[in-house]
């Protein structure tokens, strides 16, 4: 969070996500987020860190319009999230990939069908969808498991499946909530490389994680939340050099 002055009426060039003095309260007098201002640009990769309950998940929910801000403005892909109508929310979500902490996979659908869900929603023809799904599963190393059901997969495989579903549409924004939480060292790096490569292709990637070693290893921008407030916004090595 570059704590730069953000004016929602004049978004910065390339900024896909802009939060302007955003606060969120679920209960009167208790704030999940307090006066948060942050921007995420096209192709930018940023970590969102902080202890449990700091507001990381709330911040992500606000970006993909699962929650509305109590105060402030959120501009995502040029749309004011607080003012989105009934059809505006799904239209916005189709342009955002989300990797949920609990994966949110459909247990009765196959691996292939789970990934295809994101393509079904946008009306991708079946044949084209099949080849896109296969290519995506290959990228996350799950092509041999495409006819299995999620419950027969290991935790790590389920996580990779969730990432495949979030990325198959080549979204403009990717939000990942603890995407490497269930993975071992080698797989963590594979998945992180996948997320970084999405940013290289122009997707704005926001990754919530507890893993400080990971943040250090990748040397990317890191935004730290504590008690709903941004307490640190460190630029990545690339921005520094």
């Amino acid at each position, binding site marked *: 969070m570059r704590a730069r002055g953000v004016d929602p009426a004049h978004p910065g060039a390339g900024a896909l996500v802009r939060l302007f003095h955003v606060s969120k309260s679920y209960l009167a007098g208790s704030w999940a987020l307090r006066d948060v201002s942050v921007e995420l640009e096209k192709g930018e990769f940023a970590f969102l860190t902080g202890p449990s309950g700091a507001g990381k998940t709330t911040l992500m929910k606000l970006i*993909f319009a699962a929650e509305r801000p109590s105060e402030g403005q959120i501009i995502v892909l040029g749309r004011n999230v607080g003012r989105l109508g009934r059809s505006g929310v*799904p*239209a916005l*979500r189709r342009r955002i990939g*989300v990797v949920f902490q609990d994966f*949110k996979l459909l247990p009765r659908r196959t691996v292939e069908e789970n990934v295809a869900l994101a393509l079904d*929603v*946008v009306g991708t023809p*079946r044949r084209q969808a099949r080849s896109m799904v296969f290519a995506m599963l290959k990228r996350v190393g799950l092509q041999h498991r495409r006819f299995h059901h999620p419950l027969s997969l290991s935790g790590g495989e389920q996580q990779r499946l969730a990432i495949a579903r979030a990325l198959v549409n080549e979204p403009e924004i990717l939000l990942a909530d603890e995407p490497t939480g269930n993975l071992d060292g080698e797989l963590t790096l594979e998945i992180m490389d996948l997320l970084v490569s999405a940013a290289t292709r122009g997707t704005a990637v926001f990754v919530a994680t507890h893993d400080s070693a990971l943040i250090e290893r990748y040397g990317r921008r890191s935004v730290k939340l504590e008690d709903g407030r941004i307490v640190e916004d460190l630029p990545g090595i690339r921005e520094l050099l």
Partner: protein
Amino acid sequence: MRRLGVRLRYFSRTALHGLRASPMTSAVAVATIGVTLLLVGAFVLLVSNMERLLDRFGEDILVSAYLEVGLPGEEQRALLERVESAPGVESVRLVTEEEAVQRFRQGSAGQASLLEGLDENPLPASLEITLVPESRSTEGVGILVAALDGLRGIDEFGYGTEWVEGYARAMALIRGIGVGIGAVLALATLLIVSNTIRLAVYARREEIEILRLVGAGRSFVSIPFLVEGFIQGTLGGVVAIALLYGFFRILLPGIEGGLEILLGFATPTFVGADGVLGLIGAGAALGTLGSGLALVEGSQR
């Protein structure tokens, strides 16, 4: 257009997936619609056969215009031409005095002696008027008689439509009862289908939530449930037709015997293609509406 095709395939695939996921509840919905439509179909079958009988009775409606005794032959023929152009008349036949006597003798074998000893033929000539099919009713006869009444040379009219009128009234009553029962059953079915779909929505709430999170709109989530209701309704209609046909074949010999004794003729027939399509269509409509009801209720909670 291509996108619409993709969507339609997705909706049908998802609906079939949903039906397979809860086969018991789906079977109950199909059976309920089937039984409801079976009862409605039974009424349709009864009324359509009664209507056919009424048409048969209508063919027997004949108006006789008795002519004045001693009316010369030319005037009788002139009257015949006049009556032929009256409203609702299909054909007119002149029955002369001699023919009337002959008929009387043939028709009343034991009482032919009644005419013996009479110097003159007491039976008048008459015009036997057959009506066009649309006018074969009490109203049609009334219109014709009113048009011919007062015509010189016609003494009086003979017709017997009271019993036909009674039959038509009974049929209207049965039709009314059928519509009433049909409406109540349709309402009950709507509620049952609506409950089935509500259960399906509840069972798949997690899936719906995930669909919404990946950007599915309201219609994308709802339409598969409507398609599910449509499929259940259509299957229910097919079940109803199959059961109705089965019962019809089993009960036909008994019905035929009874009608033959009662009316002298019997040709009960099954509902036509329009009836079959109508029942299946009604099932499809009930299923879709019931499902729509569940979705509307669900979205208002």
